[in-house]
């Protein structure tokens, strides 16, 4: 009997300790610094939000969250890096509409699978794009613009920050739905495109709201509509393209946090809860408000995953119709 207990006791102890450790891995999370990969160069709106959220997480958990910028190939380099990282919750990705909805169709082959390689955690922001025109264009509404464009096929130029960006695809969708012909002029980034729009080299642009707003307020550009289905709280008087004659037009730039597939669900949930709490803090709300949006409602990992699926399907069609391709 004594020998039996002597044999069983260490076994039970070992079992008990192992169970305690397994549970503790999620309870102790995070126990070391976390890396937040941003697949774009520093300074853009996505990067700024990533740093802001990283700061909030650092304050909440007393573990540093370090932003790692890995730009290139339209966001694919950074996304690929996280896809191939260990699924322990210590490597996060600020994925975006580009990496998970547009690029799968835009690029022939991706080194990662946007659905299988990732577990979505939480949507951070859905930013509207805004249709702005140079004052030299005599249109004061979307309807007038469509009439103007129909009367002059191939005359108007619209600029965008890069081939395959939401600004480009918004323009292509607009062309298809309105039946007008415009020439797309790609630039290396939103800033040179904005410069040429102000100068009148290009006549219109579907830029993101935060970038375009200062020049609209100063009267150098005219805002015609937003690209989202619902009006933006930052400019409630501005109609949507959908209600201006092209029903169903809905395009936003979104980004959110993701982890490699296979990350334990408790860690995913813990991340989600803290991020949602961070997004609803007063200063974050102000920041989102300046970008023309508000914290997403019903922000659960499952909801985000479903959102990504619908977006990917939508953009698959838009990219194919536009004929845009990157190799």
């Amino acid at each position: 009997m004594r020998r039996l207990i002597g044999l069983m006791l260490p076994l039970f102890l070992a079992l008990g300790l192992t169970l305690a450790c397994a549970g503790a891995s999620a309870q102790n999370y995070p126990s070391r610094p976390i890396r937040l990969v941003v697949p774009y160069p520093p300074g853009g709106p996505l990067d700024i939000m990533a740093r802001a959220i990283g700061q909030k997480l650092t304050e909440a958990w007393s573990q540093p969250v370090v932003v790692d910028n890995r730009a290139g190939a339209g966001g694919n380099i950074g996304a690929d890096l996280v896809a191939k990282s260990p699924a322990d919750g210590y490597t996060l990705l600020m994925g975006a509409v580009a990496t998970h909805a547009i690029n799968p169709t835009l690029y022939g082959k991706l080194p990662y699978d946007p659905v299988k390689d990732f577990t979505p955690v939480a949507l951070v922001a859905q930013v509207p794009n805004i249709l702005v025109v140079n004052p030299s264009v005599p249109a004061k509404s979307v309807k007038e613009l469509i009439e103007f464009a129909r009367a002059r096929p191939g005359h108007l130029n619209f600029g965008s920050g890069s081939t395959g960006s939401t600004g480009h695809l918004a323009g292509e969708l607009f062309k298809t739905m309105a039946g007008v012909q415009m020439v797309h002029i790609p630039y290396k980034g939103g800033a040179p495109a904005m410069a040429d729009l102000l100068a009148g080299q290009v006549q219109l642009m579907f830029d993101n709201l935060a970038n375009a707003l200062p020049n609209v307020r100063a009267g150098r550009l005219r805002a015609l509509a937003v690209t989202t289905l619902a009006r933006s709280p930052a400019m409630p008087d501005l109609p949507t393209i959908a209600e201006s004659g092209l029903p169903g037009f809905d395009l936003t730039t979104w980004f959110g946090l993701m982890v490699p597939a296979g990350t334990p669900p408790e860690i995913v949930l813990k991340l989600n809860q803290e991020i949602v709490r961070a997004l609803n803090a007063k200063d974050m709300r102000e920041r989102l408000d300046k970008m023309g949006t508000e914290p997403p409602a019903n922000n659960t990992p499952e909801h985000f995953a479903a959102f990504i699926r619908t977006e990917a399907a939508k953009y698959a069609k838009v990219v194919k119709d536009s004929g845009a391709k990157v190799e």
Partner: protein
Amino acid sequence: MDFALFHNLSIGFGVALSLQNLMYCFIGVLLGTLIGVLPGIGPVATIAMLLPVTFNLSPISALIMLAGIYYGAQYGGSTTAILVNLPGESSSVITCLDGYQMARQGRAGPALAIAAMASFFAGTVATVVIALFAPPLAEVALKFGPAEYFSLMVLGLVGATVLAHGSLVKAIAMTILGLLLGLIGTDVNSGIARFSFGLSELSDGIGFVIVAMGVFGFAEIVSNLEQGASRDVFVNKVTGLMPTWKDLKSSSGAILRGTALGSMLGILPGGGALLSSFAAYTLEKKIGDTSMFGKGEIRGVAAPESANNAGAQTSFIPLLTLGIPSNPVMALMIGAMMIQGIAPGPQVMTERPELFWGMIASMWIGNLMLVILNLPLIGMWVKLLTVPYRLLYPSILLFCCVGVYSLSNQPFDVMLTALFGLIGYVFVKLECEPAPLILGFILGPLMEENLRRAMLLSRGDASVFFTKPISGVLLGIAILLLLITLAPAVRKTREVAFQE
């Protein structure tokens, strides 16, 4: 108008001279100088790292510090260019040409001093230019469309052949090689990756720092090691730490011309400030006694240094007046402003004058701090050259590799730099100069992008380059310059033919 300016400047200095803002200005310029000296890591990486710190600062303090880092880096970059032929910043490449030669002759001290003084003068003048002419200059910048940019770059390329003081054919060959290297990457219009050999690291092109460090820095180290112990001249022939009166007199014209050119080119978004140091050097080579260029001509240090500092200051204009960033650093500044909840754009000047004028005032204060910081350090830098080379070069190599790695955290980049070092060594052996290569590398992709965009906008009509006034004038000057450069060569051939 004058009274308004005085009033605005008093607001500005009132803000900039507060103890807190003075401290942040000092931190910024000190940091900037340090990272300018360190090869590889530049203002972009540093400002990106410091963005979270700015969350908790007041807007004006944050912007003062970040701006200080940017123009401080221009000062620091020239130090390594002169001492060890390593361009710390892209705008310091031209300073390598004559600055390093001056150091080889034991005149590192005067070179560093003139660089600091030229930069200070240019920075001061440029700050005044911003204060007086920011809005009208921004409008001028907007008049430069793709056609005008293309013609400006053609002018720059033609000037590139002037950069070399050796064989003209070799200079042209290097320029073309640079153009070809610049083609590597993803095409803007079609989205196709060119010459990337399937490597995703090459799909965005080769970074400028990698090429410059390899071809200038690494190659120089290799050829120095090959020559053995003939570096004593650096130390034994040190004739003094300060420039002579003769130096100052001959540089004064160069400084004025460089400042003017730099101020004008800096306002052009997209590569204006980079072009300014090349342009200033090219201009100097066409004026006066040009025999010493490439062998340690002090004007070859003064002109590019004043141009790049003037360009760095005036590149703030599109940001402060239109909210458009002229380069990646300005894009980060926009990020910093947006963190603070300020939307950069035309109304910043009117809605928040203390921000606009405070920044301008602190730019001037920053330049003053920098020249006070840098002049006494010259003695220390010159002492650094006395360290035996067998200890110096491994540390240089180490700093370079760390700097290159810090750009994108990719070991691939470091290996690529080593490859370019090898290529650069081959160039040294073939007596081909790297400066035209660098210029071709920078200008080539920009030229192509603007050419195709101008053609897209004109729907295929190539005459637009001549019918648009600014573009036409620039192309005319380029053709003229080409003829002037080629004419002596043609005449020589004709003479030889006649003799036979």
